[in-house]
């Protein structure tokens, strides 16, 4: 019988105790692995966020904060000024539009006329939070998401449907976000994830091509080459994109000149997405940009909500790493204590082995291997626990550490020429909380293997101390007991 076989046999000598030890180890190892998985998932998300938006600044018209404000729209000339600021590598203008289904809008208007209710802003020029008239256009598209309680409330508040009286209001769908873009990026400056078809080609020229969010296309049974209308003008779907969220996919992208023409505001921009050449220069570029554009003309922001999100995720990452180390240390401590107990319990046996010529290293190895057998069993069950629990633990960690951040991301961003949209759809960075929630902690084999390797390392360290203790046992103790 080899040392390994003897160690495996010894590990199962007392089955009840082995089961108890393995159960405790499995919980500790499972927790450690779940924390590691969460840590890796959050780390990857932070990296992704930093890579995509870490160097992006957003410029909005000054005064366009929250549901109040006013100011002047941004212009192409200001975009040129921004592009000239040192360390600015790109400036992309956007023009936001609000699309309503033509049939739904007509039905609402008819209902309003019958009931004698109605608010002031349901035709065109609905007041956006930026205080500027947003171009509300009709379309053949049907929104892919319902307005929900918040959306209905906001629509009523804005006078879209009227709010007086006790008449039950019909369920509304959200307006569709249409954005004219000067480059193939979304409203956060992140490259569009086109899943089917192609982009719009030259984004600085008018075009009848459009990019649709996947859920919006699905809702309207559209595919590449299909057509739809905005204000009775026909557009062709050239590509489908996936923004990662339901609201984000209830959107249309067209070229910037096309949007400006549709809005009747040529040369005006809702916002500018400014990319800085490196993370190190973001702060300086922000200051220079604000000075160049004038604080009374434009607000330069650094995607605060995303920063909050990244900061929250960084906290989660740190917490999960500390928890991983703590759980790993706990597993090591359990192994250490168990092995110390076993060594004390088997002193006589160790003495016998020494009396018949077993070298210290053989006896020590036997105990280390026995610890590894227990660790392997604990790891197997722990990995199973982690694979089931890691996503839940990661979600719990994120929700408990990002409530503040999520609250701040719930605000709509200021409206520009086209105004910002309400009713559940947040501003350019409004998806931050959804980004947090989109962290999926899947227990990949690589991460689990890495975690188990760490567990084995800790198990070896935990078993070494008791194994070294065996060297101090003298064989005479065998005979003294007789």
């Amino acid at each position, binding site marked *: *019988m080899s040392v390994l076989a003897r160690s495996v046999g010894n590990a199962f000598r007392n089955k009840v105790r082995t089961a108890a030890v393995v159960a405790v180890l499995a919980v500790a190892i499972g927790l450690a692995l779940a924390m590691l998985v969460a840590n890796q998932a959050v780390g990857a998300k932070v990296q992704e966020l930093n890579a995509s938006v870490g160097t992006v600044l957003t410029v909005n018209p000054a005064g366009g904060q929250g549901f109040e404000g006013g100011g002047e729209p941004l212009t192409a000339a200001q975009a040129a000024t921004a592009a000239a600021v040192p360390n600015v590598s790109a400036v992309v203008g956007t023009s936001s539009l609000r699309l309503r289904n033509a049939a739904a809008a007509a039905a609402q208007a008819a209902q309003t006329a019958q009931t004698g209710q109605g608010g002031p802003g349901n035709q065109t020029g609905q007041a956006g939070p930026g205080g500027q008239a947003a171009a509300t256009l009709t379309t053949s598209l049907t929104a892919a998401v319902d307005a929900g309680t918040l959306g209905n409330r906001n629509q009523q508040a804005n006078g879209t449907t009227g709010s007086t009286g006790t008449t039950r209001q019909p369920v509304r769908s959200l307006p569709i976000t249409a954005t004219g873009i000067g480059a193939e990026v979304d409203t956060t400056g992140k490259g569009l994830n086109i899943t089917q078809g192609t982009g719009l080609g030259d984004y600085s020229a008018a075009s009848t091509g459009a990019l649709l969010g996947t859920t919006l296309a699905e809702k309207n049974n559209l595919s590449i080459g299909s057509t739809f209308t905005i204000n009775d003008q026909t557009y062709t779907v050239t590509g489908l994109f996936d923004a990662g969220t339901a609201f984000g996919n209830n959107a249309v992208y067209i070229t910037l000149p096309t949007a400006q023409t549709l809005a009747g505001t040529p040369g005006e921009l809702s916002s500018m997405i400014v990319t800085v050449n490196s993370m190190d220069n973001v702060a300086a570029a922000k200051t220079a940009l604000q000075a160049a554009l004038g604080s009374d003309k434009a607000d330069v922001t650094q995607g605060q909500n995303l920063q909050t999100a990244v900061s929250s995720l960084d906290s989660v990452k740190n917490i999960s790493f500390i928890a991983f180390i703590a759980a790993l240390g706990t597993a090591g401590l359990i192994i250490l204590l168990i092995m110390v107990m076993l060594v004390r319990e088997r002193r*006589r046996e160790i003495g*016998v082995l020494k009396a*018949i010529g077993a070298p210290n290293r053989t006896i020590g190895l036997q105990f280390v291997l026995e610890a590894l057998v227990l660790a392997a069993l604990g790891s197997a069950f722990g990995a199973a626990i982690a694979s089931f629990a890691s996503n839940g633990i990661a979600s719990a960690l994120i929700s408990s550490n990002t409530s503040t951040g999520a609250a701040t991301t719930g605000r709509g961003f200021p409206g520009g020429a086209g105004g910002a949209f309400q009713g559940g759809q947040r501003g350019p960075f409004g998806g931050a909380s959804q980004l947090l929630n989109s962290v999926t902690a899947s227990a990949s084999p690589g991460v689990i293997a890495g975690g188990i390797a760490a567990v084995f390392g800790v198990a070896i360290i935990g078993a070494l101390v008791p194994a070294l203790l065996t060297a101090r046992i*003298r*064989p005479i103790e*065998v005979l003294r007991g*007789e």
Partner: protein
Amino acid sequence: MIEVKNLVRTFNSGDRTIKPVNDVSFVLEQGTLASIVGKSGSGKSTLLSLLGALDKPTSGDVVVDGVSLASLPDSKLTEYRRRDIGFVFQQFNLIPNLSAVDNVMLPMEFAGVRKASRLERAKELLEQVQLDPSKHDRRINRLSGGEQQRVAIARALANEPKLILADEPTGNLDEQTGDHIIELLSSLSRDHNTTILVVTHDRVLANKTDRRFRLQQGKLTEEPARERAVAATA
């Protein structure tokens, strides 16, 4: 040849100092079958542990084939026990969760004997000590006292040691098996030139040894071999 020189082992018990082995000296030629008799607590087991390098003497020395055990480091003493010594403990001291054959194979495993060879030899030794083959693979804790004693004797013989130290090797055996074990030890001494030192209360066994010592209050004296001589003549 084993040469014991002025061996002393003391223990402190409260204010008292106990000397279970007090200035013991003797020489055993290779191949001698010797016995030590004495009352319980007279220091017989302590003397065996000193000869087997399980314990270190307070003073004096044990010289085996010209090598002083007192001069050897722990690793060499382990090697000495593995290569040159076979122990039969009074309480057997077998590993309870291993089978009989696994217990006998253990010393050979430590000595680096290949698995096939040690399995073959272990079974051969268990047959020599008359353990029923059906019990070779049985766990120790499922064997009777006498069966365990036979496994302990087989284990002591595993590495063909120069010196076998046996503490009451026939104590738990019936008369017939005891006689067989005595014959086995005698043949090892006679045919394989193995030195055997047994501690026993069994007069029959003691009388069959080449030399008989009595340990009394730590002092070792050799008894005349008249009865043995008579038995040999007969």
